[in-house]
């Protein structure tokens, strides 16, 4: 983990009163969340609650109709997705989203592009500086793959690997950029029990060094790795707090079950049904 030492200052992402409408539907309604360095924030909620929309706003794929975002003390006005990695923000996607015709190593190298110093022109004529960049990117990518126990598959194509391994590669591709804020969109989707334990370890490790936001259906994972949890329902934040408080919050249980709940077990049962979905 030496390659991702703390950059010194703690950073904070603040989402304030963000509203997003698609046609007549309020996907997000005055949503405010915060996450800081050294913290893992879980975002949960029933399907369609606006979790992925929230990520899309932070990544600049969706422009909010109202509200502000600030990161590292600066207000982010118009976020352009390609600027994210240089802002220190990385995101993984639902599923894996790997480039199918590129090797694992190449996939991860794409994630490290913002370390490149040479411009397009010199890359085209393969100037020495560009050449050095190339080796540097490759080394970074290999180091990150090694951290996630994927060094042995660097030359494989993603399609030839088990799903769980592909997800690890996707995580490596996000981490290679050395982000200070990592957005994980359903990292546990499609994983088995052993792989979940591994993922939990990875998130805990990353979460000590940078800020992490996790959208996840898998309640056990959320409850064990997150320092705080925000619950969205119909685009609104209906609860926020530490995992234990969220687990027993009647509003949360109601959002998941649609009625008065009988106890904490009920939530786990509801999520068990949800988690099987990829």
């Amino acid at each position: 983990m030496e390659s991702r030492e703390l950059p010194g200052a703690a950073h904070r992402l603040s989402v304030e009163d963000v509203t997003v409408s698609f046609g007549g539907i309020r996907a997000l309604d005055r949503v405010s969340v915060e996450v800081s360095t050294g913290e893992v924030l879980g975002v949960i909620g029933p399907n369609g609650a606006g979790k992925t929309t929230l990520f899309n706003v932070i990544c600049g794929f969706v422009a909010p109709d109202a509200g502000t975002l600030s990161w590292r003390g600066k207000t982010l006005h118009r976020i352009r997705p390609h600027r994210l990695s240089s802002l220190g923000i990385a995101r993984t996607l639902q599923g894996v989203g790997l480039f199918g015709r590129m090797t694992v190593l190449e996939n991860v190298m794409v994630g490290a592009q913002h370390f490149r110093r040479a411009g397009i022109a010199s890359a085209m004529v393969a100037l020495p500086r560009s050449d050095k960049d190339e080796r540097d990117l490759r080394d970074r990518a290999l180091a990150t793959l090694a951290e996630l126990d994927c060094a042995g598959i660097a030359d494989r194509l993603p399609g030839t690997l088990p799903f769980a391994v592909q997800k690890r590669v996707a995580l490596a591709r996000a981490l290679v950029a050395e982000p200070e804020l990592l957005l994980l969109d359903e990292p546990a989707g499609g994983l088995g029990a052993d792989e979940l334990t591994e993922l939990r370890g990875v998130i805990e490790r990353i979460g000590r060094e940078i800020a992490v936001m996790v959208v996840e259906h898998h309640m056990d994972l959320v409850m064990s790795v997150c320092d705080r949890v925000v619950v969205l329902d119909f685009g609104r934040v209906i609860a926020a707090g530490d995992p234990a408080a969220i687990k027993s919050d009647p509003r949360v249980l109601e959002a998941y079950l649609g009625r008065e709940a009988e106890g904490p077990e009920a939530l786990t049962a509801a999520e068990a049904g949800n988690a099987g979905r990829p």
Partner: protein
Amino acid sequence: MTKFIDLTLSGISDGAIYAAVALALVLIWRATRIVNFAQGAMLMITTFIAYAVIGAGASYVVGFLAALLSGLALGAVTERVLIRRVEHAPPLNAVIVTLGLYTVLVAVAGMIWGNTPKSFPAAFSLRGYTVGGTTLLFTPNDTFIVLVVIAVALGLAAMFRFTSLGLQMRAAAFAPEVARLLGVRVGRMFTVGWALAAVAGAIAGVLVAPSVFLGPNSFDPILIGGFVAAVLGGLDSPPGAVIGGLLLGLALSYVSGYEGSALVPLAALAILVLVLMIRPSGLFSAAQERRV
């Protein structure tokens, strides 16, 4: 037997040209999923620019470089100014835009340089090699053509495979949104793709100009050949485009030599139809990935 060798050699030379044009089409298809019907007109313009530069007293090499540079600029400007506006529109819009560009470029060339075909200098001698008393249809200039196209193909392959620019271009072509999220400037990659394509086209134009003469419409058959070659190769694969170009060049050369040159356009279209019927994804395309 001599005839067969002759036809094979000239097929390879023609095929190299088709390969270069096919490469141009494939580069653009990969980058922006657009078939560039203006490719023939674009390479006609850059060849005219080379013609003008050489006519002004510059050497062949300078003329060649002028074609390359003007291709680079023309490709980049076309993407930036025209194509960028229709990239998210239905595919037909882009088709109409490239057809419109074709018409404009042909008209502009006619206005500037007139419609009478002009002769264009060749880099090397157009007299065939003599082997054991017989003169082959293959000339030193054909050798030059084949070598240049091989160099272009290998150069492009190396760029896509080994440089971070190539990596980003592949990422941008495969999944633009994901690439953008990872910090790739997708729009810029599209511009570079068009610029490189126009350079490949410009090279093809200068190479083939001595044998077809230079006029506003003289490259249309070359574009058709390039298109068939690109489809043969699967539209998506640069190596496929090169192999497709060579196969087409050989096939058309045999048709022309054994059956008569009048059948060549028909044969090209027949090959296109056959490939589309039997293997629509092209002969060399890998397992088909559909965009969702």
